[in-house]
Each structure stands twice: as C-alpha cells, then as structure tokens.
C-alpha cells in the first residue's frame, strides 16, 4: 500500500490519496478554501447526474445514460474517486452499445459507491 495512505485520514480505499494530495497542493499554503470548494461542487453536482442515469435506465434511453455516466466519470476521476469513475465508465460503454438493461445493477452500485465517497469527502472537509 502507498505509504501516503497511512499519514492521510482514512480514505477507505474509495478515494485515491495521490489525487487528493495534488488537489491540496493547488491551494495556497494554509488555505484549503479551493480544495473544499472542489469537494462542495462535486458533492452537490453528482447526485443529479446519478438521478439522470437512473431515469435514463428506467426510460430505456441509452444515449441519456451514456451522457450522464460520462459526466460523472470525468468529475469523479478528477476528484480521485477511481472506483466510482470505473463504474461510470462501464455504464457509459453499455450505453454506447445500446445495452440499457444490463446497466441497472451498475447504476445501483454507483449509488452506494457514491455514498461511501461522500462520507470520505465530508470527513476530509472537516
């Protein structure tokens, strides 16, 4: 395991420590406003995308599903939520292939993964 993980708050293995470090390093020394701002944006923006993906699955709308998953994939990758990003990528691929049915389970897993990510970020936010 990456030694940094030990010195960081418990990331539960759902958020990548290295990404978090690089996000923090963007901030001015002693002022984590930007980092907190990024977390807030991510946490407030993502539920709507999950909703959209869920609704698209229910409606059998492959393209809508692909679009919602694509958006969430890139923002979660940027925030270091790699597990979530990988789930989203699988949904996106299914959407591109027009396979909506198989995605229901992946969307459900994304929702619970997002809850874990949220818990970690809220802890980091302090």
């Amino acid at each position, binding site marked *: 395991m990456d030694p940094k993980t030990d010195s960081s708050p418990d990331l539960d293995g759902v958020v990548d420590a290295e990404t978090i470090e*690089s*996000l923090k390093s*963007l901030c001015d020394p002693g002022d984590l406003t*930007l980092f907190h*701002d*990024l977390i807030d*944006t*991510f946490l407030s*923006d993502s539920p709507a995308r999950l909703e959209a993906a869920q609704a698209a699955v229910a409606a059998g709308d492959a393209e809508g599903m692909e*679009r919602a998953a*694509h*958006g969430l*994939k*890139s*923002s979660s*990758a*940027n*925030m270091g939520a790699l597990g979530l990003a990988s789930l989203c*990528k699988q949904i*996106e*691929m299914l959407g*591109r292939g027009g396979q909506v049915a198989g995605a229901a389970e992946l969307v459900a897993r994304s929702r619970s993964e997002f809850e874990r990510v949220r818990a970690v970020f809220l802890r980091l936010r302090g």
Partner: protein
Amino acid sequence: MKKTFDELKLTGNLPSPAGVGMKILTLTQKEDFSADDIAKTIQTDPALTGRIIKMANSAAAAGVKVITNVNDAVVRLGARTVRNVALGFSLISAYRQGGCKTFDYQGYWSESLARAVACQTISARKRMGAPSDAYICGLLSGIGRLALACVHPQAYADVLARTTPTTSDLELAGIEHQAFEMDHRELGAAMLRDWHLPDPYAHAIETFAGNPADDPANSDRVSSMLRLLLRVSSAIARLLIGDASNRPALWPQVEVWAKEVQMSTQEFVATCDQIAREWQDWGKTLAIRTSKVDPFTDIAARAAEVSQQAVEQVACTADSAASDDDSDSTPATVDPAIEPLTILAIDDDPVCLKLLLTHLKRTGHTLISAQNGKAGLQAALEHGPHVIITDWMMPEMDGLELVKQIRRIELGKDIHILMLTGREEEDRVVEAFEAGVDDVVTKPFNPRILLSRVSSGERIVRLREQVSTDRRKMEDQVAELAILNRRLNNSSNTDVLTQVANRRYGVAELEDQWNKTQSLAVIMLDLDHFKLVNDTHGHDAGDQVLREAAKVLSANVRKSDTVCRMGGEEFMVILPDATPDEARTVAERLRTALAAHVIRHGSFEGHITASLGVAVRQQGMEHSAALYKAADEAVYASKQTGRNRVSFAA
C-alpha cells in the same frame, strides 16, 4: 473617385463582409439568383439566421403572422433586402474591433445601429419607402469612417485627434480631405456601389451630412427620402449615444426635425421612445453596446428647464469624453509581447472546469469560462479569445460542433483550439483535427502537460500576431503610397495659382462627361480688362484677382460642376446633366457674383467683371471640341457686345 477607390481596394484593408456575407454578395452578383439559394446560404450561419428572422418580424406591420424560419423571412422581405441586411450584419461581426487606436469601434456601431432603427421606425410610421431599406441605409451611413480607420489606422487616429465630440460630419469630412484627399462620405458611397447596393443608398449617404441648401438638384425621389431619413436619424442617434445628462440639451436640435417628417410633437416623442426601445433590443441581438434612455416626454420637459445652462453642459461633457478616450487608449499602448492572452475554457463538468481555471490562473492570462458549447460559442463571439480549451462531450452543443462553428467565422480562424478528450474518444481524434482542433490533451489531464500545451499554443498565437502586425505595416505603407499618388495626381490636375482644376484636367473631364451624358453644358468665361490690372497694379495684384475669381466661381457653381482655369484669365465650367435653362441660370449667377465681389490688393481696389459664353450639347455635334468651340465663340460675342454679359451659342 473611382480610381482612388480602386487603389484603396488594392490595399485589401477596406471593410468587406465576412464569411456568409461574402458568399451572399458573390451569389447575388449574378442576376438569376434564387431566394432559395439565399435562404440556404444564410442557414449555415446560426447567428445570422436569428437576426434575419428578427428583421423580418420587426419590419412587419402589427398583427401579421410571426415568422420563424429563413425561407419565410426571405419571402416577406424580398431576396434583395435579405441580401443587403446579411451584408450589413456580417460587417458588424467582422469589425467589432480594429487597429485604429482612437477610433471607437463599439461606439461607431452603436451610433450606426441607432441611425438604422431610427430610419426604419420613421420610415414605417410615415410610409416613407421600405423600412428595411431605410434600416440598412442607416446602418451603413457612416461606413466610410470605419473604412478610413481600417485603411489608414495611424493617420486616421491623427485625424480624430483633431476632432471633438461636437465636430459635425461635415467638419470631419473637411479634415479628412486635408489628410487623405478624400472623405468618408465619398469613400462610403463608393463602397456601397462596389457592393452593388442600390444607387439611392450611395447617393443618400454621400449627401446627407451636407447643408440642405446644397442638395443636388438631380436627386431622385428615393434618394431624397433616404437623405431626409438619415438627417433625422443622425440627430436622434447623436442624442441616444451621448451622455444621459446631456440629452435634454440636445433635444431642441432633434425636435426641429419633427415637422420635416410631418409629425406632431406628440407623435415625434412617441416615435423617439419606440426608437430607443428598438435600439436597446437590436443592441442585445447584435451584441452592440446601448444605454438606458428616459422617456422622451421627460427629456423634452428637462430640455425646457436646462436650455439656459445648455452651453456650459456641452462644454463639460466634451471634457469628460476626452479624458475617457485617454484612459481607453492606454492599454493599447502596452507592448503586445507582454499583454496577457484571453483564454476561454469550456466544460460542462463544474469540477473539471474549476480545476482547469485554477491551473490556468497561474499562467497570468485573462480567463473566461462557459459551461456548454452554446454558451462557449456566445462567449467566443463576444470576447474573441486567443486560445480556447474545450471539452468534447457536452450537452446542447458538443465540442466538435462548437469547433466547426468557430472555424466558420472570420474571427475564429486565428484562435488556437485545444480539445480535452477522454480515453474512449482516442480513436476519434482524427475527427477532431479535421473539425479544426489544433491540439488535444487527454483527460483526466496532467496539469504540467496541459500548461505546456497552453504555452506552446501561446507561442503560435504570438507568432501569428507578429506576422499580421508585419503585414499590417506593409499594408500601411501601401496605403501611404496611395495617398501620395493621389496628391501627385491632384497636383498634376490642379492649377497651382488658383487651386481649381487645370486645362489638362478640364479637357479630359469634358471628354469624360461627353461620353457619359447627352445633356451637357459648358460655360467659357474671360475676365474683362485683366491686362489693365496687370499693367497698372502689377502681377501680384493680377494673381490675386485670378485667385479670388476662381474662388467666387467655385462657390457659385452647382456641386456637380467643375471649374477649370484654361490659361491666362480664361476659365471653363463643365455642367453635367444641365438643361439650357439651368446652364443660363448658373452663368448669370457667376456673372453677378463676380461683379459684386470687391477685390483689394495693394493699390488695387475694385470690381472685376467677365464675359461669358454658354453652349449646350446639340444633336449634330460630333465631339466635345465642338461644344467647347461653340462656348468660346459665345464669349467673343459677349466681348463684342459690351462685356460683363452672358451670351448663348447660336
């Protein structure tokens, strides 16, 4: 003027419609273009489409069905009008900014737009011609000023430095003539003719700034109507674009036009209110600056109160406007090499956009952002960024479509475009380059790679700027050469002593007019007892007499006439499109004006008279020399019968 215009056109710097506007112009040079062709061409430009549809609806009478597509707009307005409107709008998009430092490009369009809507509104209310014709004529009424700023950016800045906010169009034309041997009115008219716009447009914009008393007698009905509309509209526009506090002081100069367009004060005030609203509305559509305007009843009421202090106020506003100009021009003098670039970042994912902006902030460049392709396109049109960084997959309009649209417009050709691509789009990267992307960066991006890509883009942008600065310098030199040419040309055509045309020019001009028009008249004129002045009072006095005589003649001919000194004390006046009666009237006017003019020089003080001969082109005359000879013989008849008189050729 034709020759001068061709020289300027060769510099490649005259304003010309961009993109779709140019396509439509070429398309409609042919006589047999179809309305369908025009509609199809317009549709390739979404912004233009919207504006044309708005035009069709706003030019229509109330209660008529609202138009929602280009085809219907073309049917309602007519193909020719749509073509003219497209031309005007595409000029606005291409010339929002430029190289002349003291020329206020935004202010110029704001004023032109105010003139356009004022022309349209009054034309619609008073049924003076087609409102859309009036609109486009108003919009292009000052195009010669823009053209001079484009062709001679440095020299025109010097010209503008000699003006104040109260300088009239006519005074400006005078200063321009000193600097360029031509003015914006002539140049604008030549450009309109070059674009094959209707001749009355050109005629109206060439003459509207002049004194009504000097209006050419041969104007047709449409030109005269457009000229009147332009006069009213430019007064209203001056009030609208000026400082709000100064509007009451300007109102009396606007109000006097009410009776000229046959409106009661009440109707005129309501019309002005409507014009102000339309101006703001169109300003939004065309992204042109406008300002808030109080109801005109209030402006008129305050005008009555402040009329006493009006003079002082004008002086104050002039001062503050001048100092505003100073502050505006300061940033432009900063070395372009260290001026930050403008970067537009577009991403629908707020996290990604925030990160992008955070990294870019360190570069010190000016940043703008947008959250989807459509907003991105809008921002690009508004700010004209040097670099665009855009995501690919976005709702509304994706990155690929955005890039295609941007590359289609003139302003977008030089923008350096970087596209962020996800791994899954890697196999489609070729498609992105084909759409016009300059570089791609894969997501999630590595900040260091992204920033080095941005700085390599910056290098390209700077290089391109350097190339275009060099080109501009070269074009400046070509334009300077054109001025010099015109000067030389003018001096070889000008009589050094009297500054009117010389014999060489006179003979050539007579031949020109002979080939152009059937109704042509010539007045020959010989000063009486001139030799006596020379012998008694010296050659200095003689020279002064010639100079003043030339001045009196020039001041008393019609605008279209040419005065030339043929040699010694002999002058010729060429009168195109003159009936025998008109020619006689002019000749008689010249005779009395000369006789009434007192000349003082040294020991000489007195009147000078002339013997005049008038000849009008007749059916049987074979060449211009016959006309000239007939007039000359009539002069002889005048001399024989006692001088100081007008004789008609037999």
